């Protein structure tokens, strides 16, 4: 198991002034594994994700990518190491087409003389290939994001996160804003990523999500590791108990 380790956090603590958001938290993630992170509001889930993505610097503790110790100064650093975050508020520009959103900030260009121009053809082609690889169905790569349903937007956000061969994807409540009938599609997409060898960390309140896609689940309680288990060795009732701080 440890041969496949892609990400590890060792006794990470994060203090905001006198408030302790995280205290000696450990986390590990294997290649192609889907890890569910659960916990009540304020348990430290989002803070932990922000530490892993480089948005926050840990006050104590260290991070390892592919078993190498790293210091992240910004989300750019974690991106360069192959970690992408899918934001809860879906960082997409609704006025732009799907392809433009997926490649925003990293647009393919071609040189004409001294100038760099957008390579519209290549972007369209890469977008279509990538959507097909993830089995995301949309009418056209040129459709504007604002014309899409919530589930399709979430799919575009995930496509954006994985367009540059991300090895690790963090998702903060990927199904929270979705209509019930769309949740299944996003969960299918997560399973698809797993098949492609991508490791995923999913924060979710929904036990259905956790028990559909995750291999392992860990619970935070008041900023500390509370419990964790392979999914097959636990039950919904037990996990719900962990969220509330109860252990048998």
């Amino acid at each position, binding site marked *: 198991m440890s041969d496949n380790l892609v990400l590890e956090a060792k006794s990470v603590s994060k203090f905001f002034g006198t408030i302790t958001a995280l205290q000696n938290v450990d986390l590990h993630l294997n290649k192609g594994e889907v890890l569910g992170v659960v916990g009540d509001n304020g348990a430290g889930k989002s803070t932990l994700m922000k530490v892993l993505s480089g948005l926050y610097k840990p006050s104590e503790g260290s991070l390892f990518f592919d078993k190498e110790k790293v210091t992240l100064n910004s989300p750019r650093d974690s991106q360069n190491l192959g970690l992408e975050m899918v934001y809860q*508020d879906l*960082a997409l520009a609704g*006025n*732009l087409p799907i392809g433009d959103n997926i490649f925003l900030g*990293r647009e393919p260009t071609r040189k004409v003389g001294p100038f*760099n121009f*957008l390579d519209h053809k290549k972007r369209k082609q890469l977008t279509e290939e990538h959507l097909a690889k993830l089995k995301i*169905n949309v009418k056209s790569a040129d459709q504007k994001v604002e014309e*899409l349903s919530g589930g399709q937007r979430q799919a575009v956000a995930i496509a954006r996160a994985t367009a540059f061969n991300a090895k690790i994807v963090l998702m903060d409540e990927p199904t929270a804003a979705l209509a019930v009938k769309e949740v299944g599609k996003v969960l299918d997409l997560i399973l698809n990523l797993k098949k492609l060898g991508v490791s995923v960390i999913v924060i979710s309140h929904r036990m259905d999500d956790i028990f559909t896609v995750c291999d392992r689940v860990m619970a935070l309680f008041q900023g500390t590791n509370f419990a964790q288990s392979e999914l097959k060795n636990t039950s919904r009732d037990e996990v719900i108990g962990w969220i509330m701080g109860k252990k048998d």
Partner: protein
Amino acid sequence: MDHGEERLMDKNQETLFVRLIPFFERYGILLLILIMIAVLHLLQPDVFLSWRNVTNVFKQVSWQSMLALGVFMVIVTAGIDLSVGSIIMLSLMGLAIASKAGMPWYVVMLVAPAIGFLCGMFNGIGITLLRMPHPFIMTLGTLYIFRGIGNLISGGVPITGFAEEIRVIGNGKIKLDAFFGEGAREYIPTSLILMIVIFFIFWIFLNHTRIGKWIYAIGGNPGAARAAGINVDRILIVVYTLCGFLAGIGGLILAGRTNSAYPNAGLQSELDAIAAVIIGGASFFGGRGTVLGVFAGVMIMGILRNGLNLMNVSVFWQQVLIGSIIILAVYIDVLRRQLATRT
């Protein structure tokens, strides 16, 4: 996508009205221009489409179109620039003073765009670094500041008489003797050529470069742009600087056209520029609009003013009409958003 949802979507989109929206979004404005031209031609058959009148319209819109193009980019970022009318006046005054000081004409010609550039950069830096709550406030301030400085350096009096080389941009004529025979009166104004070239360059910039794409992204969702690693503040400074630069070019054209720098130059022309942009289909909420639309908006304003003047309609009615068109154009935008956005 499951089949139930697919059917639902198709059904929505098969509504004729909804299907026509993209068509009108793209071509409706050109249709409007053609109708205006046809109507004015019928009303004034000898005058309106005469060479002299058409070139006159183009000469008039050429400097105004520079302001509209700059303000358009700013509006795409969901911002606003109220100071362009004052920038055009200040750059015109700077040009006049440089000319009076006896500087060579090629230096004088650079003065106006350079002043515009610096004014725009000042706006951009103020909006981003001073963290003004809205560009409206910063550029409202500079609307007063720039015109005040223009009056301070000129003493508040007009300065007239520029060298022919300076006037060539705004007043130059490209003779068409080759087509119409020796000594023909038909010509193409230099300012029309300049306008077409500049609009083409900015069309390339906005549609075929990364920065152009980012300008639209910022207008659509600045948070998304930031999350994508785009330096939003830097792009905004670029946009406001280019807007000021274009106003400076407008000042250069106006210098050639009027052969004078006067305290009221460009007064309220920022409002005409905003009106042209909105009529041209850009959304005030940012992220939406095209360079061709701006051109059309400028032409609609120009043709309308020209036509109403030819018909001897009072300036007061012109104001009422232009105001009504702005409100109608924005109302169409509101309807479009309601119908086109699935929530």
